[in-house]
């Protein structure tokens, strides 16, 4: 059974098709990568799947429920979360609070008890905080447990976003360029984090430019160009595909 199934998905911005008639499936427990040159529609695809954009056409099925057009917070409730290419950190909060927001669904907060700081609220908050710290350690930004998010370096913020997404306990995690802006060592570490996440049974989809990472950790790769599917398959298959090479590396370089 597929976890996510996309059928004939399209999105047009002012007459230009950013994503056009795209279909693919994602099976549970695997790592998928979506590659393609800049402007190929990868981030748009992410935005469509996670409800940030409304599709112009097509269907998205998540765990066999039609979810096209649902708002992001509903999708999160169903078990889908993501990170962003342009960081969407809550810079007005501390690092650990950022992750605690990720656990929002599971705290099910009510206003009156929160106002009064009832013991039950305090206890659950404490647990939530502990869990958030664990997650920060898990993704490798344990050094920033007490930090203000605004004072953290870029690489740590990328991890913080992953921790926040994990705190919502997703079944499907979409990572938008997790390694962008990171150096080689940091990329290697993110690699490990992603593998560990997948190891816990979370299905991961990532958009990434770092080919070494993509080729190294993906079970399955989807290559896009001009919003359309260019190729699909295992890393080895995609790497050999001449269309991919010419689109990605530029004409004449193959």
């Amino acid at each position: 059974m597929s976890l996510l199934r996309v059928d004939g998905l399209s999105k047009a911005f002012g007459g230009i098709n950013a994503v056009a008639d795209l279909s693919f499936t994602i099976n549970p427990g695997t790592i998928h990568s979506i590659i393609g040159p800049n402007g190929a529609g990868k981030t748009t695809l992410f935005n469509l799947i996670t409800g940030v954009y409304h599709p112009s056409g097509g269907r998205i099925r998540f765990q066999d429920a039609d979810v096209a057009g649902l708002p992001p917070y509903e999708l999160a409730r169903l078990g889908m979360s993501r990170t962003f290419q342009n960081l969407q950190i809550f810079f007005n909060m501390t690092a650990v609070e950022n992750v605690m927001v990720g656990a929002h669904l599971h705290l099910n907060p009510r206003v009156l008890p929160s106002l009064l700081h009832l013991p039950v609220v305090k206890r659950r908050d404490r647990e939530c905080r502990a869990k958030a710290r664990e997650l920060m350690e898990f993704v490798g930004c344990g050094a920033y447990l007490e930090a203000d998010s605004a004072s953290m370096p870029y690489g740590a913020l990328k991890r913080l976003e992953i921790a926040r997404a994990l705190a919502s306990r997703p079944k499907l995690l979409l990572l938008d360029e997790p390694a962008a802006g990171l150096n080689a060592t940091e990329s290697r570490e993110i690699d490990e984090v992603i593998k560990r996440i997948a190891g816990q049974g979370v299905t991961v989809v990532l958009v990434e430019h770092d080919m070494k990472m993509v080729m190294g950790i993906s079970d399955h790769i989807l290559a896009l160009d001009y919003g359309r599917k260019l190729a699909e398959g295992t890393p080895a298959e995609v790497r050999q595909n001449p269309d991919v090479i010419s689109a990605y590396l530029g004409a004449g370089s193959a």
Partner: protein
Amino acid sequence: MRLTGPHIGLLATAAIIALLPLTFPNSYYYDVAVSALFNAVLCVGLNLLIGYAGQISLGHAGFFALGAYVSGILTTRWNLPPLLALVVGAVLVGTLAFVLARPILRLKGHYLAMATLGIGIIIFIVLNTEAWLTGGPDGLTVNYLSVAGWTLKGDRNWYWLAGILLLTTVWLSLNLIDSAVGRALRAVHGSEVGAAVVGVDTGRYKVLVFVISAVFASVVGSLFAHRNGLITPGIGSFFHSVELVAMVVLGGMASTFGAVVGAVILSVLPHLLTSFEDYEAIILGMIMMSTMIFMPKGIVPTVLRLLRQRGGAS
């Protein structure tokens, strides 16, 4: 319990409220202090909306005035007990805010400012026009606050009531901010989409905070009506709304104590400036401009940061 920064702040505020009357030579000082405290309560509520959730409102005086008028009308014309009238006012204003919140909070930035401003002005016009109900521009006389036969009179008593109310409000606000609800509110400010993808129904939280801050305003409005004895539509005017926002921003957005400090300063300032007579407006304008130019984050956050930097350096 470990004492954290906010709790120390709460204790300090309590100490100031308790000790300040020692410096008061007469009840006029209590009077000014009460209005400052009332404004502080209102601003703590408004700060949840503006500072923490990042949604501007230029019409909040409208909710304040509605609360005042509902209390005034119900107690003087229908002889309802003041506390019941206060609750009815809060429920009515809360309901109105709830109905308005969804369509309004879809707006952003200056469009939101315009919409809230419009609502405030419409409320003002209704209060001003429907004289049969509100007394029109000449105002509405409101009875003293009395509970079960006991009447609250005298500036001293009002001072303690307002002081306790402020402490309670600050405590509630600190609690809320440090809870999952508060984090969701702040997340709405930090990044709406970032909050949404981890399951925060941002629309719901914007409505929630709008209603909470409106109810705060309504309750303070009710109390204000009983203390002042006379209310006029002017309390719901655009200028009063702007004044409230200025208090929050001046003191420091997203800082509960900032809201308190801003409210106190802008409430006391006009009384300090009376001796400048015709220069009063010029000085007030200068203070507003220069504070915001040199401390764009507001007074309390800026001072705290300076202190922290100095602490870090030494």
